């Protein structure tokens, strides 16, 4: 075989030049943080369990079975049954749907409000800044939990239909949460707008919209992702607390909070631990996992680590 014939089959190796992407770089660093990856795994597991799990459950939602009241865990009912003979596992999964949805939705809403108002306040300063930040200050001076209690009590007083309460709880949590986010975003904006690359944007004669959406907001996004993640955990916790006190989402719609509330007496607490341990553990595991994941994200995305 001649050299030529051997080289004939050779082709210049095609080097795939990957577009460098900040997302991929961050992902790479996040993958090195095993704890954060584990946290993310738990979060994904909880979501999968709650949203897909009920389809495989033989027990219909809220089906009452008087023959099976307060039964301890068995092969038939893996986590036992409650005072109305409903399967706890199914209820925990269905409650998770509500709790996770409330957490997620109220996070999206408060991030949206907080980022928008914070950006406007930080970028335009002046009157807009004064009005927005004074409202935020006002909301922040009132402790969150009592405020939520008052809202919840009002809802009960006004006899809001139980179906709507879930949405109103989302709204309440967002109202309590946005001021912190708005402050954070505003602070970032204030420091970013003084940076030299923003002066460069002025010299280049860029439009306000481009400065705001192409230059300032992308620099706030990492912070927003971290805050939003940690916020979900907080929102889930707050919703559970509210529901536990009977001021959030009402039975028969299950949430982790009102499931624990159902076991809120000495007999159930001592004799039927399967009533409150599963929802309690679910809250605990989800919130801890979200916070660990959020901390990992912060380590990766914190702009102060990079130039």
């Amino acid at each position: 075989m001649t050299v030529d014939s051997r080289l004939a089959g050779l082709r210049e190796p095609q080097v795939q030049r990957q577009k460098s992407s900040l997302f991929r770089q961050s992902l790479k660093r996040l993958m090195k943080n095993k704890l954060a990856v584990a946290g993310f795994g738990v979060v994904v597991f909880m979501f999968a369990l709650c949203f897909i799990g009920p389809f495989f459950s033989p027990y219909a939602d809220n089906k009452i079975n008087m023959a099976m009241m307060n039964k301890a865990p068995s092969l038939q009912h893996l986590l036992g049954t409650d005072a109305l003979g409903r399967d706890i596992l199914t209820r925990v999964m269905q409650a998770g749907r509500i709790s996770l949805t409330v957490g997620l939705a109220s996070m999206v809403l408060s991030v949206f409000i907080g980022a928008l108002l914070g950006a406007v306040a930080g970028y335009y300063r002046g009157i807009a800044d004064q009005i927005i930040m004074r409202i935020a200050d006002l909301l922040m001076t009132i402790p969150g939990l009592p405020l939520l209690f008052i809202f919840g009590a009002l809802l009960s007083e006004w006899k809001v239909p139980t179906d709507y309460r879930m949405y109103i709880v989302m709204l309440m949590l967002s109202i309590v949460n946005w001021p912190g986010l708005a402050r954070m975003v505003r602070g970032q904006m204030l420091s970013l707008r003084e940076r030299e690359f923003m002066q460069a944007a002025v010299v280049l004669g860029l439009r306000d919209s481009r400065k705001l959406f192409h230059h300032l907001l992308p620099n706030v996004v990492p912070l927003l992702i971290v805050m939003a993640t940690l916020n979900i955990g907080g929102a889930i916790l707050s919703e559970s607390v509210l529901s536990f006190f009977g001021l959030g989402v009402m039975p028969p719609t299950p949430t982790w909070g009102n499931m624990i509330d159902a076991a809120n007496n000495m007999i159930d607490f001592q004799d039927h631990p399967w009533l409150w341990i599963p929802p309690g553990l679910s809250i605990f595991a989800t919130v801890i996992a979200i916070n660990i994941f959020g901390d990992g994200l912060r380590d990766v995305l914190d702009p102060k680590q990079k130039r």
Partner: protein
Amino acid sequence: MSEALLEVSHLKKYFPVTEGLLNRTVGHVKAVDDISLTLQPGETFGLVGESGSGKSTVGRTILRLTEKTAGEVKFKGVDIHSLSPAELRLLRPRMQLIFQDPYSALNPRVRVGDAIGEALLDHGLCTKHEVRELVLESLAACGLSSYHIDRFPHEFSGGQRQRIGIARALILNPDLIIADEPVSALDVSIQAQIINLFSKLQQSKGLAYLFISHDLSVVEHLCSRIGVMYLGSMVETAARDELFHNPLHPYTKALLSAVPVPVPRLKRERIVLKGDIPSPANPPSGCKFHTRCPFAVEVCKAENPVFRDAGGGHFIACHLA
């Protein structure tokens, strides 16, 4: 003589000094105090002076990054400081700024290609299809490669970033570039590359530069006219060769005697200035330089010297020369 590209007359920029709860103005820092200069198309004017002399503020006030206190800045006969924000925005592409610190002048989250091309798109100077081609052209002109276009600023060295900053200014095809100490953050070998890039671009595009620097050797290499600033005021303006061979102001003489010469045995008369530059919030009476001037006489303390023509376009503010 053709119409001047840039005409700065009696420009002043005072920053108020405030004190106390009520932000009472207790004084002014006279960062720029009565500066006049003209720049012809295609010319390079060098602005030198020690740190704190107000060089950068001159550049920024010309571009209206800060509002002036008094005076006039005319760019192609248009008073920049009287334009509305919308009018000013349309004029922006004609005059560009290159920053001192290439690390902070680029947005860390914007790809280099976007950073260079976005102003073209924003001003509607080209279509979305053309922009990539133009960016590549601009990158090539500044000695960068085509595969750099999709990278982020943190993937570049300081010298490369400065080239990106230059490419970003250049793509708009400006008439005037104000370069605010563009090489002082770079090491010497890179400085030479960037300076050569500046002169190459000037020859090919007919750019005018206002080159702000504290490095006299850089200015000598690049500029046709040079102005020397001290404490917010111009003390001497002359053509390059005139200034370097026949400096009239004692401050210019002192600066020139401090320029290192690559001849170790050469005996030179060194004028060493005593003390620091005085505070611009409380400048000395009379000639601002009299506190450090080795030749100062009585009249210097009492009277502010007039900035006058000493013949042949050589302007100077000194009682003695």
